[in-house]
């Protein structure tokens, strides 16, 4: 607990300090959870697209 050597550490009312910690944890995990969700969705869609027969979507190009 070296940090306690610092005079300004540990200021503020206790409930606020607890809620700082809780909010820090939530707000740090939230983006990872959301990005993980998008990643999973993309991977599942890519797998599904690979399994499905090639549906060429060539924007109506004359062939």
């Amino acid at each position, binding site marked *: *607990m*070296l*940090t*306690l*050597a*610092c005079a*300004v*550490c*540990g*200021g*503020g009312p206790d409930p*606020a*300090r607890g809620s*700082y*910690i809780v909010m*820090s944890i939530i*707000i*740090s*995990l939230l*983006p*990872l959870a*959301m*990005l993980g969700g998008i990643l999973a969705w*993309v991977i599942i869609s890519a797998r599904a697209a690979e399994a499905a027969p090639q549906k060429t979507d060539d*924007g*109506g190009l004359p062939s």
Partner: protein
Amino acid sequence: MSSTATPEASGHSHDDGHGHDGHAHGHAEQNFFLKYFWSTDHKIIGFQYLFTGMFMALIGGFAVYAFRMQIAFPGMSVPGYGRVTATDYNALVTTHGSVMIFWVAMPVLIAALGNYLIPLMIGADDMVFPRLNRLSYQLFLLSIVVLIASFFVQGGAFGGAWTSYPPLSAKPEYNLTPLGAPMWLVAVALEFAAFLLGGINFVTTLMNSRAPGMKMFDVPIVIWMIVIASILFMASVGPLVAGAIMLLFDQTVGTGFFDPKKGGDPVLWQHLFWFFGHPEVYVVLLPAMGIVAEVITTFSRKKLFAYKTVIYTAVGTGALSFFVWAHHQFIAGIDPRMANIFSVTTLLISIPVAEMVFVYIATLFGGSIRLTTPMLWALAFIGEFLLGGVTGIFLGSSGADIYFHDTYFVIAHFHYTFFPIAFIAVFAAVTYWFPKMFGKYMNEAWGKVHFWGTIIPFNFIFIPLFLLGARGDHRRIYDYTHFPDLMKPGMQDLRVLATLSLVVLLAFQVVFLVNYFYSAFKGPKAEANPWKANTLEWQAPSPPPHGNFPEGLPTVYRGPYEYSHPDRQDDHWPQNSPS
């Protein structure tokens, strides 16, 4: 916006049937204005960002010149500026910091290189949402107009440092810039909106526009890095925007979000700021790492050592970067339990960064290295950045940081990281892709003069600052002669040395600018693939025409770093060559 009337309609709609960004087919001739200022072509937008970033670098460079002269020679009339008052000093420091980070590093590393390189390197003809892309640049330009206007309003430019901590930033009675402060905030917010749009484009383009045959693990590292960085940016910027709105309300309508007298909490801003602020340093670091990967593989004719590891490492760094921000607040009154956690995560994050550096050194090992100008920059990046990373570990130990915080040690630390990122790596990129961008060569000899003229003074600026910081030299002081403790023998000499080195460094940038613009017009003609590189942009003509690949979009057969393959005579093996 009508999709048929605009003459820039490119004839390459990615989005047929998907609405808001599809546009009509056709090849109307474009006049100069429409071509260079109203274009949706990703290369033009890349150039717009690049040149705007260069212009902003001049502003940031001028600001640092003025305030460093004041530090070295207090009270002097600075040639080209005049006397620097205390208010000026604060405004100049703030302008320097925010311009270099938000209007130079971000636009050049992410927006300019991302726009220019992503479609070319993944074999596409443009971005998925070209008009969103144009809007992104326009917002960015608007942000600059607001910022520059704020220099001239009553009270002058904002002077509360790039971190804009309340209460100083929140109250006009304290900062004395009733207009400058809110304008600064608005400019930053506009800039973020611009990069949000850009980032959306980058991610979607990488997902949905890769050339046929190009798997995710055939994508060059620099593209991976730019896209991961954009994702990091998008996921971290929200809380800062929330804080910015709250701060704007505090400044203008008199709410008290950050005012303890009204039940607010100033430390809250620091959390919201650094929640973005630390991921932000990785947002600029990752693209720089990517540039270095491209340059060192090309000029050592070797496959990148551990391609996939680099990508996983970058993803891991990105994930970890959400858990370190409070290391900027160790002595701001945060809970000691929190300081301990953040100390540990901060030390942890140096591991993946170090690993990337090791991978690059392993790539160089045993290669046939050619010391061209871009290669020199790339090698210098590795060496100089290492020093920045290592000193970060000192600061990340909460105990040591009680001493180091707000000293010049911190300044030297982050300049040893930011300067390599925003300038050394960018010079590597600019010189490496110059033949592609302009179809011309830059002058190698002058390139090397510029290299040495930048690297040597750079170290002579910041090693003195490390020494000063270790002696307790506080940052954010206008005139040290008022502080006998900070005027001990030798300290002022170090300040003068740093300032004079800065002047030399700035002078050598003229060499670059002349070389760059002269070569762009008058340089010797370059072939399409002068460095014999594998990635797709080099397989397009130089400079690439509208639509990028006139012979049809390429098909990809292999990864980007197949140099010196044992079964081949040629030492390179383009990604799109069938055999």
